[in-house]
């Protein structure tokens, strides 16, 4: 194994875009808690993996921090009640994924008293075993808060003998999202403590906090907090270039180490593991205070929002409630986006609730999205090639997918596309490239499934053929046996004939 430590030198990754940032507008005010909404809609599945079993039913009274779904293996993360109240119902409710679709959600009517279950912190986490810490984080409902919602325990647990560094991702590269920046400004010490806890849990020696070079305030606060904690030796703060998609896990690793995660491998193969800074703060809350993950900072911003700002929001709060708390819609909003403009998901409705991965609600007007432009043929200009951080040939992939030549697209590493959207953003022909790649990837997955199904069907068919052949053989054997049996009476007839012959013979003589 090669030593891979994020060094002092910051590396460039290929491609990417320098985008104009609009974060200041949401950073003017401190993070605020909105009023309690009438109802919380807690999706029972908020992470990659599967949902646990429901532990509550209609009419149940719950207290804050109480588990609503059970924890299973590392990919079954529990959900917790964000506040005290009554379970009204469990129903299908609009969700961000699949786009325009619904997800099962627990509807909680808060009672406003915010009564808590007893919090159980981990005593003396410095000496707790990694296993104990990981189990605790798992029970506390931790999943990645950067947007991908990968179960935290699953990322930490594993036999990673060379794991040296926990990287905390504070490089928020989408132009409008500011929740992580505000978190690091206001809770710098908690982020560092959380990073140290994650490092202990992962068996790593040090923490590297990556922030963007424009985050001067954050840098100062983190340095001060590090000093206050006496953690200068084990915590490094690194500024990376402000280039989109710097905050992508693989791009960030490349920027810090100059090395690439193998396409069929994991960051752990390089001795690093990446967690979002908000996940670190949540880990700190879970371990030091015994509080499960029930709230997060959400940026509510965009030209369509009257008073853009960051909210410390209970999981399950409908986006509409946050928009109201931000003064409502300022202009006719054409697109409501979860995440940033480059890679965010357009939402069909603002009834969708906050989940553990909801970092930003962005309301764009027609000015920013522009009415759909006609798509022109690809002119092979190569702009997409220039900006692709995965060093793909986006225009070639597009042509192959368009021609439904998916095997060739797979050969051109379609599956390595990180869907950052840089190619589509620069395409002068206005081709919705990312949509093509998603379609191509889905189709490849479907084909793989089909192939597996076909293989299964073939096995079934062969088994049936074999069974039929066997049965036929058995039938034939039985018939033969029967025929044998039938031959015997013939023999008997022969004997009778013989006896008659003998009698005749006797008569003659």
């Amino acid at each position, binding site marked *: 194994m090669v030593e891979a430590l994020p060094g002092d030198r910051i590396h460039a990754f290929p491609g990417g875009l320098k985008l104009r940032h609009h974060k200041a507008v949401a950073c003017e005010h401190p993070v605020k808690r909105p009023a309690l909404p009438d109802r919380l809609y807690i999706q029972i599945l908020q992470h990659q993996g599967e949902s646990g079993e429901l532990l509550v039913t209609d009419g149940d009274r719950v207290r804050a921090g109480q588990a609503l779904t059970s924890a299973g293996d590392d990919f079954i993360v529990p959900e917790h009640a964000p506040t005290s109240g009554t379970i009204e119902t469990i129903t299908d409710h609009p969700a961000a994924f699949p786009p325009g679709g619904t997800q099962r959600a627990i509807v909680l009517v808060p009672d406003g008293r915010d009564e808590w279950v007893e919090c159980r912190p981990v005593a003396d986490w410095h000496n707790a075993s990694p296993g104990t810490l990981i189990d605790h984080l798992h029970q506390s409902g931790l999943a990645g808060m950067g947007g991908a919602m990968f179960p935290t325990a699953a990322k930490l647990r594993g036999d990673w003998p060379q794991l040296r560094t926990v990287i905390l991702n504070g490089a928020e590269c989408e132009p409008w999202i500011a929740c992580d920046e505000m978190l690091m400004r206001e809770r710098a010490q908690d982020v560092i403590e959380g990073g140290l806890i994650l490092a202990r849990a992962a068996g790593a020696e040090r923490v590297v906090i990556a922030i963007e070079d424009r985050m001067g305030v954050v840098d100062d606060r983190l340095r001060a907090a590090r000093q206050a904690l006496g953690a200068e030796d084990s915590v490094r703060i690194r500024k990376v270039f402000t280039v989109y998609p710097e905050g992508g896990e693989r791009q960030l690793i490349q920027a810090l180490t100059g090395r690439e995660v193998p396409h069929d491998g994991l960051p752990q193969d390089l001795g690093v593991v990446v967690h979002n800074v908000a996940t670190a703060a949540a880990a700190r809350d879970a371990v030091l205070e015994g509080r499960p993950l029930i709230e997060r900072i959400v940026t509510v911003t965009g030209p369509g929002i009257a008073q853009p700002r960051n909210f410390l929001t209970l999981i399950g709060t409908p986006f509409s409630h946050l928009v109201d708390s931000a003064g409502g819609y300022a202009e006719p909003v*054409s697109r409501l986006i979860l995440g940033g403009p480059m890679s965010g998901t357009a939402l069909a409705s603002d009834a969708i609730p906050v989940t553990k991965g909801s970092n930003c609600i962005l309301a764009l007007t027609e000015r920013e*999205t522009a009415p759909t432009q006609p798509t*022109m043929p690809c002119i*092979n200009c*190569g702009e997409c090639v220039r900006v692709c951080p995965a060093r793909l040939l986006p225009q070639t992939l597009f042509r192959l997918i368009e021609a439904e030549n998916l095997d060739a697209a797979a050969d051109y590493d379609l599956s390595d596309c990180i869907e950052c959207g840089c190619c589509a953003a620069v395409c*002068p022909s206005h081709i919705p490239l990312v949509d093509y790649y998603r379609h191509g990837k889905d189709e490849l997955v479907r084909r793989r499934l089909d192939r597996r199904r076909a293989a299964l069907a073939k096995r079934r068919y062969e088994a049936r053929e074999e069974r039929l052949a066997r049965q036929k053989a058995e039938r034939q054997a039985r018939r033969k046996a029967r025929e044998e049996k039938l031959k015997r009476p013939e023999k008997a007839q022969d004997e009778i004939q013989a006896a008659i012959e003998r009698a005749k013979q006797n008569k003659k003589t």
Partner: protein
Amino acid sequence: MKFELAGAPHQPPAASVGGVMRQVLYALVPAVAAHVWFFGYGILFQIALAVGFAVAFEAIMLKLRDRPIGLFLSDWSAVVTGVLFALCMPPLAPWWIAAVGMLFAIVIAKQLYGGLGYNLFNPAMVGFAAVIIAFPLELSQWLLPRSLSPGLPGLLETAQAVFTGRLPATLDWDSVTGATPLDQLRTGVRENLLVTEVRSAPIFGDFGGRGWEWIANFYALGGIYLLWKRVISWHVPVAVIATTVMISMPLWLFGPDTNPSPAQHIFSGALVLAAFFIATDPVSGCSTSKGKLVFGAGVAILTLVIRRWGGYPDGVAFAVLLMNMGAPLIDRLTRPRTYGH
């Protein structure tokens, strides 16, 4: 409230095909102005004719192919093809040359291959190759630059020459036209004259041909504008010019009597035009960075080979077309290594 669902990214597109093509046209303005100064109004007639035929053929073909005419005409690509073709024409070339050239460029090389984005060859160069093969005489009659000419034809005289093929009595073909510097050099060297002897002719300037060298400078100026506007990347122009220097320099140093200097190569003919405006055509060229370097180097090498041993004084058009054939393969061979592979 209901909101529209759309795929990311959620932002207005940065550029458009039409915008890119218009930038190319803007970038050509200084060179065209210089052309008018040195060689008179002929170039404007050539541009008007070629653009007119290009747009007409494009519209007819789009109609026949049942494609949206307005959408594709507004991409300006036919106009760019017409202008680039016109820049390679002798200023007084008869009008039907443009018609034949655009027939090959737009109808055959572009629309019959599927229209914008699907042509394998640079349309303007296909048009040029067609007319230079078919009508070598008409394409060899170049005007002498202003300083050497007894008088450049005026607007009406130019119109008469272009549309009737006859010059007014006040001017005669032999006094106002001559071989291009590249042609003269080539003929001279083949007749065993020394390069220095050939270059002592009045048509040669400090670097290339009189007038020609200035037009080349203005092409480069336009090219720098395109680089600044990020319409083109540096790879192709640098590869074309650097390769030209790298190959012609040693030849010139070791045989200055028989080999023109690198400056002569660069500032005569269409090399600078090709470096910034023709070999950079995205559709028929390469799209990977390394591929663009290979493509540009190939154009330069083939140009020099054709100039030295080929049947035509300038070889840029054929060099570009030959490299167009190789472009898909070059792109394939210069495919970058995907992240993590």
